[in-house]
């Protein structure tokens, strides 16, 4: 296998992480909605935690994406 094809395969493998981050973001918002509908009065107070969880999950996905792009274009 030459370097160019190995690079493309590696970038594709690195992009798998984005899918898992999408699952994480879905879990964050899904669980928030699940509990917010049970107790809507307390939901607004938890908004910072929601955004924090979203940001933490999203960061990992963006890192996987950035790794894929670096493998593809910058190495």
């Amino acid at each position, binding site marked *: 296998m030459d370097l160019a094809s190995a690079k493309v395969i590696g970038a594709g493998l690195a992009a798998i992480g984005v899918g898992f981050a999408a699952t994480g973001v879905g879990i964050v918002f899904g669980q928030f909605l699940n509990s917010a509908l049970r107790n809507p009065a307390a939901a607004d107070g938890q908004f*910072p935690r929601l*955004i924090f969880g979203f940001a933490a999950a999203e*960061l990992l996905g*963006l890192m996987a*994406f*950035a790794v894929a792009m670096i493998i593809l*274009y910058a190495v």
Partner: protein
Amino acid sequence: MAAGKIDPMHQFTIEPIAGSFQGANPFVFTNSALWLLIVLGTLYVFMLGGMKRQLIPGRWQVAVEGLTGFVDSMVTQSIGPQGRKHMPWVFTAFTFILFANLMGAMPFGIIPGAHPFTVTSQFIITGVMALISFAIVLGVGFYKHGLRFVSLFWPKGMPLLLKVPISLIELISFLVRPFSLGLRPFIAMFAGHILLEVFGNFIVRGFLASGTGVLVSILCFLFVAFVSALELLVGAIQAYVFALLTSLYISEAEHLH
């Protein structure tokens, strides 16, 4: 850009505008410095236009008061009444990251000769901001509590056998904080702009190729429009997260659990 290899990293290169990097010259006016000044100027004009202190505020004053009130309520909610004295740094970080992200997402590229540059897509900028936040946390903690600040890492109410490894983990997670804090806004802008560049290239290439290529470029155009909107949202969220985490960390240093 239409022919040859796609080069999405080119938009992040720092180039001298006045002067050159030759001869170890430290005073070079780069495109990064230019866009820092543009962001700062926009922020200055925005804030100055709203600081009229009228009893019945106009639209501009409402916008500025909404921004300051938002950050103020966030700081007082996370830190408490003594959070007021940390308001200047949190507000500075929030507005700077917000404006830099939004200015980076604006389509200045359609002006011929203009090379838009996102200052927050450089880790040196966000990293230094994260280090300032970390320095404030350390300063507040050691000034207020002295060496008792170290008890932040010592958990309460568990057997001694567990306390030692957990305090080590707490210490490591504390030391990693400035890195993750600075990495977050950087990587969001970095990844978003690469995505826009790559799919922007696909639009042009699809039109150059005939047949189904046009269909692909229409789909890519819709996707780029969606990602641009998402980029505005992500820019605002990252600024919010940076300010929120900074105030949470300062709150930990103020109250020690």
